[in-house]
């Protein structure tokens, strides 16, 4: 029997275990068999990938940037969820804050999520800078550094951003669109109190990362099998709902351009100076 391909994932929530048990069941039928290894944070997973302890890493965008830098760009991305392409950051404001556009956040209190959350901290700062705002100087920043190491996956810091707005401790805030739209669609946001004023350009979120020496054929057959998982099939629908996707997509060159903005942000904010890789 073939040695299973070992996939790494970060255990950001208890549901990660059933998700990956389901993934293992799926690949047992659909092709090359996999096993999985869970990590408590993305740095551990990146390290394990770089040291060849795992074959594939289910990475956030920030973890992808780390692997990319550590491998001088030789790593490859195989696939991602449909929601990982064209991910956006939403800037929300209190309706009584007088903020109508990004420029208006000057002089205001701005809530951000975990320092290692691309969607709720790193990229919002970058987008503010692109709009001519120097958030560290021009605004009072409220940072909610929760679950650091998990790159914002848990969503807890985004919940705190919302709470800060709701309680009047912040005038504006930033969070990922998936969290925002879930909460608003569930009717948990009072639209009279909090509203979105700006949506960022689309960028990429997670991907399945391999190193350059991972065989092309294996990458191909694994990705083909993954893309064969259909939301129409009730056996896998629950798993896909838990993972928050309707379709797996191939990470082609055009899609991967969606990571450039994060490379730029990491560069501009000098984040890599503290990285171990």
């Amino acid at each position, binding site marked *: 029997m073939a040695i299973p391909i070992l996939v790494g994932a970060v255990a950001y929530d208890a549901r990660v275990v059933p998700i990956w048990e389901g993934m293992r069941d799926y690949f047992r039928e659909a092709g090359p068999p996999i096993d999985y290894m869970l990590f408590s944070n993305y740095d551990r997973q990146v390290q394990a990938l770089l040291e060849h302890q795992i074959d594939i890493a289910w990475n956030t965008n920030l973890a992808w940037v780390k692997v990319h830098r550590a491998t001088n760009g030789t790593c490859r991305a195989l696939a991602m969820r449909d929601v990982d392409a064209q991910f*956006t950051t939403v800037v929300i404001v209190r309706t009584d804050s007088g903020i109508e556009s990004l420029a208006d956040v000057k002089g205001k209190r701005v809530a951000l999520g975990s320092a290692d959350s691309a969607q709720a901290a790193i990229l919002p700062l970058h987008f503010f800078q692109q709009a001519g705002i120097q958030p560290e100087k021009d605004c009072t920043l409220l940072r909610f550094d929760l679950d650091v190491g998990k790159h914002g996956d848990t969503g807890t810091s985004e919940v705190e951003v919302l709470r800060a707005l709701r309680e009047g401790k912040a005038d504006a805030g930033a969070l990922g669109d998936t969290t925002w739209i879930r909460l608003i669609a569930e009717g948990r946001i009072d*639209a009279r109190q909090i509203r979105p004023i700006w949506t960022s350009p689309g960028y990429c979120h997670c991907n399945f990362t391999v190193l350059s020496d991972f065989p092309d054929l294996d990458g191909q057959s694994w990705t083909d099998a993954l893309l064969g998982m259909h939301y129409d099939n009730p056996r896998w629908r629950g798993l896909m709902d838990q993972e928050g996707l*309707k379709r797996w997509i191939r990470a082609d060159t055009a899609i991967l351009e969606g990571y450039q903005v994060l490379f730029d942000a990491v560069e501009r904010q000098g984040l890599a100076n503290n990285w171990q890789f």
Partner: protein
Amino acid sequence: MTSSRFPDPSVRVEGGALGVGTGLLMVIRETLDPLPASAVVAVRTSDPAAAHDLPAWCRVMAHSYLGSDSGPEGPVYYFRKGEFRPVAAGQQPDWGIRLPLRKGQELHTRDWMVGRVGQVPEEALTTTGFAPRGAVVEEGAPAFDFAINSRDAVWAAEVFDLYEQATANQWDASRDIPWGLLQPLPDPMERAVCQLMTFLTENEYSALYVPAKFIPQINPQFNEVVLFLSTQMMDEARHIEAFTKRALANGGGLQYSAASTQLSLKTLFDQHDFTSASFLLSVLGEGTFLDLLRFIETYAPDPVTAEICRRARVDESRHVHFGMAHVRYYLTQDPAHYGELLATVRERAAFMRSVTEVSPRVQEALAILAAGGLNLDRLAEGTGQVRALMDEMHVHRLQRLQVAGFTPEQADEMSRLHTPNFM
């Protein structure tokens, strides 16, 4: 009006001033569900937040957001419906059903047998779970551990009418019984009544627990049977209440429970098959009880006892009818079932060989009732009337068994093997 930038939409949704968080999604879903994949939808809303929220919602729901146009009455947003299948492919719920009313504006249960609701499956799926028959069930629902998934195993053609009668004839043991008419009775007579009330109550417990045990096993696709059995349970609960109250209402109290009675009731409660249990309990047991209740009603020394027994008898008669209707349905499905039920009766009789007669205390109580008290002149006659009751019970059992579909010979063996404990 055709937009130059976007394909012609299949549907236009007028959202007024609604946003994604304030109800717009409900309006969209109402029109989206029946549309095929790839259909283009245009949504007009004046809520400015929609410019941010609709694209994000589309992305998460795997619809393709196409963009927006400004219109005179607010912007119009376009998206293309995602291509994954609806939740239950190939099935559509019924729509446009309007059940007819009967005389007096009544809406009867039998009349809901239309459309998808009217299709009672031969074999029910365990994955329809608690979904009502006729609903469209999403794929991927969990399987339930219902043990009874075959229509044969529970169904009765008359279940609709019996359920209708049951719901129409519920009564109140606190208020519908003329408790105020009770007068003190001589001790021997009151003791006889209390002994009979004790005996009736313990039997009613078994009649409550047996259906209770089977309801969780029955697939809700056979919901009319479940509903009927629920009324049966409520009936038995009320009988327990009424008989117990009578024992406590007139200077006496609950009396003795015989070990042989408990053994008989336990063998009933231990039945694992619904049809066997229904046959033993309702056809043979409750059937026999009809004669017993009539006897007590006839010789009751007070109007309260008579009224309780009369009302209980009307209820029990429905249970007997359901049992007979189910057994008849079951027997017509497969002649081999005759043998099964006969074997069930023989098995129970063999287990209860030690019980040769109904508890002496119960027999004596019946005789005292029939004799009008501990009356030396009439006790012999009372005893004779109890014997006549037993004969009458046998005759009536034979009739019921034959109506249920057994031959006279089969009916005779079954009736003779039936427990002398009545239930």
